[in-house]
């Protein structure tokens, strides 16, 4: 069984055109990347973005030179693609709805009720807050790694998580009050 330490050499082989090495990298990282992008933008769009992410990773394999983990580099590509996609979506909505597009991105609900609730909750947050919380609280990345993935300073990640959780707490408290 190969470990994550082998990602660098595997990527080096991929950079020289070794498809088998790249397939190993895809097999190793697809679950986490798809889970992240699926949470951000919905399962279908998440899979589409994940494929695009791996295509970029294949084309730019030479750009990764061991700065941080390969997984973080990959997640960073996925995050930037998600942002580009979200911007395009907003522009499209603005065009069709005459500028009345919602700031928050629609999330395709997943099958289970528990997931549905969490997706609804996450839908209340800005995409940046959502990403920071998914990465750190859900996937276990450190704040520093999340900052590297999202391409923002460490303090920004901490602030995004803090404000995101404040928003969630406030919403849950509202629900709690309405229930009484």
């Amino acid at each position, binding site marked *: 069984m190969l470990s994550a330490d082998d990602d660098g050499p595997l990527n080096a082989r991929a950079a020289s055109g070794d498809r088998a090495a790249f*397939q190993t990298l895809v097999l190793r990282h697809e679950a986490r990347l798809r889970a992240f992008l699926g949470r951000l933008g919905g399962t279908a769009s998440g899979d589409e973005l994940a494929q695009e992410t791996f295509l970029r990773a294949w084309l730019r394999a030479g750009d990764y030179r061991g700065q941080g983990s390969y997984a973080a580099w990959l997640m960073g590509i996925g995050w930037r693609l998600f942002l580009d996609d979200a911007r395009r979506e907003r522009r499209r909505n603005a065009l069709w709805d005459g500028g009345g597009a919602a700031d928050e991105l629609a999330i395709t609900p997943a099958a289970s009720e528990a997931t549905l609730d969490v997706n609804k909750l996450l839908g209340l947050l800005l995409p940046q807050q959502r990403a920071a919380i998914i990465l750190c609280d*859900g*996937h*276990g990345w450190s704040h520093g790694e999340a900052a590297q993935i999202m391409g923002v300073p460490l303090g920004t990640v901490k602030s995004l998580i803090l404000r995101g*959780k404040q928003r*969630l707490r406030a919403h*849950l408290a509202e629900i709690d009050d309405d229930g009484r």
Partner: protein
Amino acid sequence: MDDDVLDQMLATALAPIPRAADRNFVLAVEQRIAEHARYCAERRRHMASFLADGGGLLALVAGLAVLSRLPLFAAFIAPGWLGIASPLTLVALLWLAAHSSLRISTSSPISRNSKNGPHAASSGG
């Protein structure tokens, strides 16, 4: 809600679900890479063709410019660069029309190639 409770709830709900690697997804990525390679090859081919067309047109322009200076053809073409614009345009349009129809009739679409792509074999076994 208590901070710890919220953290615990998020950690449980947002953690990636452990599962075996999805080989169909790997195949889809492979297919995407192959499609991209085909697209790049097509684009290079079209760019080369475009440059060849441009070169041909330039040669025609140069030829007409030379011809327009000969006394034999001067009577057909009004003096100056503006005067040769209309015959030049006609020749350029004819050239492009002929070349485009030739390209359309000989080119094969990507979708036809993809059936025989590298994944047809790999997905089979």
